[in-house]
């Protein structure tokens, strides 16, 4: 209860200070609108914003699923072949360390002219992929060597070794990476929408960009609130999934 109550009280205090500051200060509305006007903008544009939020969420989730499939698949390939790992891992690192903002325009030129959403998914996938690959690889290497010996001694097949030993060992690592990658996928989707601009993307980031161009700061805040809520929902969905799947540790 305290865990929910304390941040809630902090948020209410922040909104109160914000309200007082705007009401009694001399800050122009286009720099910092009041909390009430942000709330009004949210209600007035709820349909448009929710529709855009749905598009951003769709891109984020597709990218995340693609990141899980590719990250887990590649980590498995790494665990089976050191040669594959040595060949491909450096490229994965290059993708990770290169700022996504600098890759995004290129992806949009290559893929996004006719299929903007495809480009957005690829950019969001690029942001989400590496933590899953890195964590899953670490998880597959974290097998208890003595348990591995027992599986050998009792004649386990390759499939049994994977499904009953490697996969459950790697599961906590994968779930931890999902909490990080969920946020990264959303960031990737937002960056992609910003870079795409008005080129066909109509997600939440584009709405924020549009509102910014028109100096509708309260609408920008409304979009930001929805983005934050989406990020928090993704994060806590994975926290709940982790708690359920790893309930044996409770």
């Amino acid at each position, binding site marked *: 209860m305290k865990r929910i109550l304390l941040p809630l009280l902090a948020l209410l205090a922040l909104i109160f200070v914000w309200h007082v500051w705007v009401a009694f200060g001399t800050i122009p509305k286009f720099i910092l609108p009041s909390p009430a006007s942000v709330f009004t903008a949210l209600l007035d544009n709820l349909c448009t914003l929710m529709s855009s939020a749905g598009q951003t969420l769709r891109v984020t989730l597709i990218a995340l699923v693609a990141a899980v499939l590719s990250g887990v698949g590649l980590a498995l390939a790494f665990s089976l072949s050191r040669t594959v790992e040595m060949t491909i891992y450096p490229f994965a690192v290059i993708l990770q360390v290169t700022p996504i903002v600098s890759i995004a325009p290129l992806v949009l030129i290559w893929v996004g002219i006719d299929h903007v959403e495809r480009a957005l998914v690829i950019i969001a996938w690029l942001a989400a992929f590496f933590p899953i690959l890195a964590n899953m690889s670490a998880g597959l290497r974290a097998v208890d060597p003595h*348990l591995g*010996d*027992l599986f050998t001694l*009792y*004649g*386990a097949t390759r499939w049994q070794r994977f499904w009953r030993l490697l996969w459950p060992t790697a599961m906590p690592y994968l779930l931890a990476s999902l909490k990080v990658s969920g946020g990264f996928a959303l960031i990737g989707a937002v960056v992609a929408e910003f870079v795409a601009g008005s080129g066909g993307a109509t997600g939440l980031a584009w709405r924020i960009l549009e509102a910014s161009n028109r100096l509708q700061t309260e609408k920008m805040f409304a979009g930001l609130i929805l983005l934050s809520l989406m990020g928090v929902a993704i994060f806590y969905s994975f926290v709940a999934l982790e708690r359920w799947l*790893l309930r*044996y540790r409770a």
Partner: protein
Amino acid sequence: MLTATDLHFCYPEGEGAVTNGVSFEVAAGEIVSLLGPSGCGKSTVLRLVAGLLQPDRGSINWPVGDKRLSFVFQDAALMPWATVLENVLLPLSLKGKAGDRTEAALAKLASVGLEGYDHRYPHKLSGGQKMRVSIARALMAGPELLLLDEPFAALDEILRFQMNEMLLKLRRKQGWAALFVTHSVYEAAYLSDRILVMKNGKISGEFNPKLDRDKPSFEQRSSKAFTSAVANVSKLLETRQ
């Protein structure tokens, strides 16, 4: 039951031989301890016997049928995501034979003093209880030979005594043989029918404690045979170093 002859083994990345001509026998129903300082090759001998390592030279012979053995490690090596029952059933479930053996697994758990613990997860068990599960799992495979690699080293003295008693009781009932690696002279003297002292990858001495197993534990531990076994094995360890 088992004859190991002239076992030589060297880890590829290591310097020098880990085992350097180890030969010994284990008879059916016999507990043989391998005793020696750290790094003398005791655990390597166990892994060679288990077939987890292949000797560079020498051989291990099992005269009667297929080898049936189980391994108990110093850490319990339980699957944290599986219940106690699922852990105990592991040797059978990997062979697809666990379905109708639940009752047998529950009986094995009862035999190690863990009745009613079947649905718990390892996370909820103490160190001693985890080790009991590990032993129950090893026995579930129906071994002729049990390989124990310092299984009680991490336990406190009182628990260690209890586990020693439990192991002897189970052996009396089930009749398996055991190859037992330990650092403890007292444990080796109490548990073993024979003690093999190892040094620098070789067996440097052998001693038979000859305890009267019909007597209660405290009488065995305070008997002349026990104190003499401890003294003699300690002497063997010292003089060979």
